[in-house]
């Protein structure tokens, strides 16, 4: 292998890396709109750019799906060297209707036996977000992230003004 060949190979590898990372960055959304509870709460604009800068690596939130490896003891035996998946969005694995009868019957035939008891989308968001926010000192109150809609105010009876303890026979 002469010097020219080595240089060509190096350049090709470099080009691949550049193309790869460009593709990844292009796929990565800057913002994610979370609007699964819009009846009661305004949609949350999740700043994916800012969050991905804070996170040590993608696997903190995306487990093994981004092809960046995983450190979770429970996943590592199968996914230590897993490739990046075609779809890496939360909702692709964490469904928004985890307890619908369709989903429950699908789960009962689940061939991926290690993935039983997978949280739904809402659970996955809240555990990931508030778990990290608690550690990092981020906001953890409901309305810190979710502005309530007028319907939400009615739902929580925000105007109730009775006194505590008027509970009848209790």
């Amino acid at each position, binding site marked *: 292998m002469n010097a020219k060949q080595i240089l060509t190979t190096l350049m090709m590898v470099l080009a691949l890396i550049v193309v790869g990372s460009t593709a990844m960055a292009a796929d990565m959304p800057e913002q994610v709109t979370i609007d699964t509870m819009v009846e009661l709460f305004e949609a949350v604009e999740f700043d994916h750019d800012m969050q991905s800068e804070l996170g040590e690596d993608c696997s903190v939130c995306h487990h093994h799906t981004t092809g960046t490896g995983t450190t979770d003891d429970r996943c590592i035996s199968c996914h230590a060297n897993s490739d990046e998946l075609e779809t890496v969005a939360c909702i692709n694995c964490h469904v928004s209707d985890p307890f619908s009868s369709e989903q429950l019957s699908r789960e009962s035939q689940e061939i991926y036996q290690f993935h039983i008891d997978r949280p739904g989308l809402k659970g996955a968001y809240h555990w990931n977000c*508030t778990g990290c926010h608690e550690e990092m000192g981020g906001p953890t109150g409901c309305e810190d992230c979710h502005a309530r809609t007028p319907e939400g105010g009615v739902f929580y009876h925000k105007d109730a003004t009775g006194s505590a303890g008027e509970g009848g026979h209790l």
Partner: protein
Amino acid sequence: MSGISRRKFLAASVAVGAATTLGGTKKALAAGSFSGYPDGMGVLVDLTRCIGCRSCEAACNKEQKLPDPNLPFDDMSVFDQTFHHGTQKRRTDESAYTVVNRYTPEGSDPIYRKVQCNHCAEPACLSSCSVNAYTKTKEGAVIYNGSVCVGCRNCMIACPFNVPAYSYSSAFGAVVKKCIFYHETRLKDGLPPACVEICPQEALTFGKRKDLLKIGHQRIQTHPGRYIDRIYGEKELGGTHWMYLSPIPVEEVGFDPRPGNEPIISHVKDFLGVVPMVLAIWPALFTGFHLLAKNQEGHEDHEHEIEQQHDEEGGQQ
């Protein structure tokens, strides 16, 4: 003559008594225990996930069209409320079929526990109801028919979880009220309860009871140290369809440890099996005793008469 009949009567009584005892035992054995509906649905409540946001209370209130609460559902001061001189935390009542209570064990973060009907496999409320108002459905719910309820409140005394509540506010047609797992409006169609749907933490997992047990045991195994090794409701009181995973002993989050694993009906089943036989045999038995006693009285009267005759004769002499 009367001696022979008395002996015969006593022998017959003993035979009947023995038959009753044997018959009773056989019946009690045959009754066995009900193993529940394995395909019935349930909910696994994970106390390590609950953050006490009370959204489940709000969802229940809205969907069941319950009266407006005294305080907003995001008012956390309700956790400080106690009743009966601080011995009792909030409980379910006619205006709230579910409540969340806070427990603060020493050296640990607060733990919140949602209270509602646990939908027992062998419900004590059902056993105690004299008008058959309660039904355990194959879908897993314990429902009741308010139109036949006479308001005796036996179910409130029988329930080991203090769940059924009385509608004291209405003077007419007052009935017992409790969570019915949305049997007609959701469960029959395979839909999860409103409280499960709203829970932001997925502290409530809805599914077939048998699958929930699998999930519960897996969580305990996968997260050593997070839970105590027990699914409350797996065996307790004959099994319940709402079950709990707890990080600390269940007594510390307000569960009464006394009822044990036997369903409440086991304590009365043998006794109740004997009742029909007692009703059939006792009238005959006591009629017999009565006749016997009357016969004895006849003898005494006769003797008395003879004595009187003697006296009279003596008097004449």
